[in-house]
């Protein structure tokens, strides 16, 4: 398991960095926010990302992808994170394509994956039902009806729900809320009758939504994975997404830290650069150390995903380590990002505010630090 980037990964990272800086800097997100953009992402930029092949990064060649591994997708996400690029890459590529690739049958993969690679299909994962992440606490039901299932219930914090063509819905087909048994996943057309999707305007200016299911009838062949036995597969999809999200967070926190360093080196007070004050130097040095640990955690976890010898339990441990650590450190760095920029950090005109807003959403999404520490302890038998 290599913890340094391969030559190919480094090239990809450089080109992603270049692309994001040139075409998708934070000012794009600011514009989407200020214009109250209906889509919540820039279609032209997304098309260019598709052309660069980013949607097919981790998808096998058999389904139109480029088989470049999660290590490849990870470095791209690090760069989109650095620039806070608002795009469907998390919802459709990291979550959607991964779920279909991991859990889908041959027909589903043949039909949907090439469309994702080509940018013709957007997906959203409808999972959480409560204010905090808990993938087994599913009350939304899917009851058997003639020719399929009928879905009832509600979902919240559904990333890109209002722009998706297909929803991947986690529903209960048996057992009680809280049980890991009796969970099934369905591919649901976003235009299906009985479905009501409400966009929610979140603090990070990215797309989220609440979704109601009122007798939404889907055919039997929309089942993604096995009936009643969906949890384990879902969890491994979530682990991949948690690691990818950690990579995105790594990029974001590095951007904040670089901004802090730059400020410390040019802001003068009391006749000297404030970067010469030990009170600030030590905080910067500690942040640097924590970010180095984050980098290693993300690299190790991505390398684990691309290593065929890793078991699901080992991946789960890596995912929870990475998501817990990155959530903690992004919290720290985003707070220091405001404090160390002083009054400037409080102004909307300055970008650091976008990062602290994104930090809190990313921290919670797919499980916050305490969720993952608890999971890590359980995985380690204590």
């Amino acid at each position, binding site marked *: 398991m290599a913890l340094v980037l391969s030559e190919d990964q480094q090239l990809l990272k450089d080109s992603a960095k270049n692309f994001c800086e040139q075409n998708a800097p934070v000012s794009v997100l600011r514009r989407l926010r200020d214009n109250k953009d209906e889509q919540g992402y820039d279609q032209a930029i997304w098309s260019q990302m598709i052309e660069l092949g980013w949607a097919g990064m981790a998808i096998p060649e058999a389904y139109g992808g480029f088989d470049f591994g999660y290590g490849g997708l990870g470095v791209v996400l690090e760069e989109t994170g650095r620039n806070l690029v608002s795009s469907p890459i998390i919802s459709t590529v990291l979550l959607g394509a991964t779920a279909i690739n991991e859990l889908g049958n041959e027909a589903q993969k043949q039909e949907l994956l090439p469309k994702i690679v080509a940018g013709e299909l957007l997906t959203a994962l409808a999972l959480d039902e409560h204010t905090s992440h808990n993938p087994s606490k599913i009350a939304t039901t899917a009851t058997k009806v003639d020719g399929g299932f009928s879905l009832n219930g509600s979902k919240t914090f559904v990333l890109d729900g209002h722009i998706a063509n297909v929803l991947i819905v986690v529903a209960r087909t048996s057992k009680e809320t809280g049980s890991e048994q009796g969970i099934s996943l369905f591919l649901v057309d976003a235009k299906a009758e009985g479905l009501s999707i409400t966009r929610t305007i979140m603090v990070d200016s990215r797309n989220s939504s609440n979704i109601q299911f009122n007798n939404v009838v889907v055919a039997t062949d929309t089942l993604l994975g096995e009936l009643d036995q969906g949890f384990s597969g879902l969890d491994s999809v979530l682990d991949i997404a948690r690691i990818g999200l950690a990579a995105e967070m790594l990029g974001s926190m590095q951007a904040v830290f670089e901004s802090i*360093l730059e400020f410390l080196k040019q802001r003068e007070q009391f006749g000297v650069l404030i970067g010469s004050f030990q009170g600030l130097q*030590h905080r910067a*040095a500690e942040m640097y150390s924590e970010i180095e640990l984050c980098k*290693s955690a993300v690299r190790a976890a991505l390398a684990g995903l691309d290593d065929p010898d890793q078991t699901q339990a080992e991946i789960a441990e890596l995912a*929870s380590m990475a998501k817990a*650590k990155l959530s903690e450190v992004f919290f720290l760095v985003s707070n220091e990002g405001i404090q160390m920029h002083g009054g400037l950090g409080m102004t909307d005109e300055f970008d650091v505010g976008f990062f602290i807003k994104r930090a809190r959403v990313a921290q919670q999404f797919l499980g916050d630090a305490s969720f993952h520490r608890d999971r890590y302890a359980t995985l380690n038998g*204590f």
Partner: protein
Amino acid sequence: MQSLQEFREDTRSWLEQNCPESMRTAMVQEEIVWGGRNAEFANPDSEIWLQRLAEKGWTCPTWPSEYGGGGLDKDQAIVLGEELARINARPALTSFGISMLGPVLLEYGNHQQKLEQLPKIVRGEIRWCQGYSEPGSGSDLASLSTKAELQGDYYLINGSKVWTSYADKADWIFCLVRTDFDVPKHSGISFILFDMASEGISTKPIQLISGSSPFCETFFDDVKVPASNLVGRLNEGWTIAKRLLQHERTMISGFGLSAGQSDNGGTTSTISSLERTAMHYRGDSDKLSDPVLRDQIARFKIDADAFAHTSRRSVEESKQGQGPNATSSMLKNYGCELNKRRYELMLQAIGSQGLGWEGEGFSDEELQLTREWLRSKANSIEGGTSEVQLNVIAKRVLGLPDILSLAQK
């Protein structure tokens, strides 16, 4: 040329035949081998293990074979490390000669000095101590004032050192001395080696809060040292001194690493896993019943994991480059803080059984843990305090303006 795979196979079978069974168990404090003229081998197998390993130069695998080292390249050395770890082999020799002096002698020593000193380090024949800190020079090490005056073909040394680890047991010392008092403090320091049996040297152990006395005060009273023992150029010892500190930091950061990898922190504690220990002392079977401690242990272990990955990454990154660099300060600082956290958590895990000092009512392991907890407090002071490491990171890695530049002028 032998392939790496062949090397691995040969190494594995050699280790199978040559590593004594008792050397494949966790190290215990009393059996650590420090070597030297008065070497002690509490376990006779230790001596056999040291001899066999030293014969191949594998106590210092990457040192050139002309100086007694193993002559291995970095990849082979990694394989050797992996194979040693595979059978849980104990380190045959713990030595400041290996971890600190050797690497700088290879870089700055002349051929004669290398030929004279390095093979003895490889074989564990000479035990070294470090003459750095002085009563008035702690974090501000470069203010040191132990004096060395050239008198014909020898230096006359006068002054004193403090916190000299095992000075009372060491055979030789690598020492920082002031050879010029009339220049800025960094420019008048030299690096010199001498025999602790020389006339005029005395040592006095310092008792620590942990009850043990690993450190000494060391006094030099007209000690005569051959001029040829000066390493590198006169008055340019500070460069060597800093380089050696990087190696020292790398060594100390390993304490945190071992906590990350095996929870053995500092390699001596016989009480191993933090979470198992906590559960054992509480009578918990499948889940640690104290939710706060459970969360703190999880947090610690996650940090230790991420730290272990960082150490590995740093090794991979330096493979192309040279030895340790400024990131050694980061690793030293984080590793030490982790090790201290580990001992605090261990103390919490064991409760009142971790608070015994001596006598009845406590197991040997429990008493040892208490002492190790106290000893761990020094981790963030020795080898440069955590605060100094943070200064180094701020200045050398982050390029922030130097707060000390005024003070040094």
